[in-house]
């Protein structure tokens, strides 16, 4: 755990619903968020004045090279960590989080993993099994209920992890390079699954990746973060119709443009 900072200013995370008035126009909002780690005096700024907002139902991809603070940013949104300055607001309740490693509990079957998430989300026992099966059906793993995690392939594990994340009943899904460790064929299929689930469930997705094509293939908007400290460097609307394919011309063209900017960001850090 990083030590708490003495200089911490207004560091609050709005948890659950605010008022009964009109629903907020955003599902995630980072308002001048900065995050520094380290002892006072020797602090290292990881995120610098991030201003970012995701509309309800939006698929937003965060792109950046190493050291852009992507994971830190997701931790702040997930409420696992507090910003040094600024506020992170998630008005629709605690977001669900998915990792590069599936992080499924190996002592539980696939179905039980999903049921535990349902249980922690307060779903009554009687409804858990049915809901878990429905969620596994949704990620197209109808036969996986009784399977142990180690009996599933990498792609299947990530789908169970997706089902478990959905079981938390959150409208916001945070994904931390969830497909980075998968092979290209599996990843491509999971892109399709995720797009489908996002649309069916009307989720707000914050998807962190360092794969430009992946970002363009999935997101309605791509935000490029600079590195050390992480700042919002650039952003693109991805005006391409779904369903998209990774080899679409539109995806390729935009990915090339974004890659150019990404390279500039990286080159800034080269030693001369």
């Amino acid at each position, binding site marked *: 755990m990083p030590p708490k900072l003495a200089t911490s200013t207004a560091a609050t995370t709005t948890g659950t619903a605010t008022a009964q008035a009109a629903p907020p*126009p*955003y599902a995630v*909002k980072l308002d001048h968020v900065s995050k520094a780690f380290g002892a006072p005096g020797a602090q290292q700024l990881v995120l610098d*004045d*991030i*201003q*970012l*907002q995701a*509309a309800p139902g*939006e*698929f937003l991809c965060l792109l950046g090279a190493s050291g852009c603070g992507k994971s830190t940013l997701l931790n702040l949104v997930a409420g*696992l960590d507090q910003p040094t300055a600024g506020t992170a607001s998630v008005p629709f309740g*605690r977001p*669900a*989080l998915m*990792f590069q*490693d599936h*992080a499924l*509990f*190996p*002592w*539980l079957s696939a179905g039980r993993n999903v049921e*535990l*998430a349902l249980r*922690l*989300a307060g779903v009554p026992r009687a409804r858990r099994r049915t809901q878990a099966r429905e969620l596994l059906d949704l990620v*197209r*793993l109808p036969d996986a209920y009784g399977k*142990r995690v*180690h*009996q*599933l*392939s*990498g*792609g*299947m594990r990530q789908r169970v992890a997706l089902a*478990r994340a959905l079981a*938390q009943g959150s409208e916001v899904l945070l994904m931390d390079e969830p497909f980075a460790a998968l092979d290209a*064929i*599996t990843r491509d*299929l999971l892109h*399709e*699954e995720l797009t*489908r689930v996002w*649309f069916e469930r009307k989720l707000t997705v914050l998807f962190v990746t360092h794969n430009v094509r992946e970002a363009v293939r999935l*997101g*309605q*908007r791509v935000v490029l973060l600079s590195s050390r400290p992480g*700042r*919002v460097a*650039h*952003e693109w*609307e*991805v*005006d*391409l*119709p*779904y*369903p*998209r394919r990774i080899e679409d011309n539109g995806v390729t063209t935009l990915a090339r443009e974004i890659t150019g900017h990404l390279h500039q960001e990286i080159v800034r850090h080269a030693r001369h």
Partner: protein
Amino acid sequence: MPATDTVPADGGGPPEPPGDASTEMTSGLDALESQPPGRDASRRALAKATPPLLAVAAVLVLWQLAFWLGWSAELPAPGAVAGALGDSLADGTLLPALGQSVLRCLIGFGASAAIGVPLGVLLTRVTVLRTVLGPILSAVQSLPAAALVPVAVIGLGPSEGAVYAVVLLGAVPSIAVGVAAGISQVPPLLLRAGRSMGATGPRGAVHVLLPAALPGLVSALRQGWTFGWRALMTAELITATPLPGIGRMLAEGTAAESMSRVLAAVTLILAVGVLVESALFTPLERRVLHSRGLTGR
């Protein structure tokens, strides 16, 4: 470039539901990438039981050979030892002694687990406790039980209490240290995943931390049992008080200078140790590891 906080409109139409081709691709890939679980329980149980039985047979054969060849004047035949066991069974001393010792070990082990497990959890949670108590527990762990018996006897008097004190001092440190090690080996990612799902505090401990640490917990208890059993035998043997038990049988055999009776007691001590190990802890450990995919087969 500007950091916008404008909310963009829909970045494209809604996705069409994927076609059958992708469904079939998905299920085809799933089939290719998962191995069918193949196992034959009864055959494996037999394969597991054979080597230990062979080992026992080999020891008996060698022993009998050594007796026939007269390698040692003191060595009784396996039959004589069996006879000594039979005698004590017949005169009604064997079963009570066995029962007393096992009961004592169960009580001692239960108490040790009740103290050692929470202590181990506390060691991972409280830094002060870890830095102060950690080295002490490790040090006590390396102490032979025989060194503790006189301390306990003088401190508590030659009583049942002294015997339990020795068992506790043997088992508690080993359980606590093992539990702490098991907990600190839990992958942080699992804890983070649990926290993000709302499993914090006691709920986190029950649903994530303890099940994740279970393999370490079981092996800590197993080691605790072994240490406790050894410590108990030492205590029963050395305490001057006539406490009924296998250790006492050993002491009486020594006093009577009967190698058969001594070896009969040794055999019993060994048998109890091996039996509890192979009937309780080994299957438990295997189950825990197997369910997590941590064993080879």
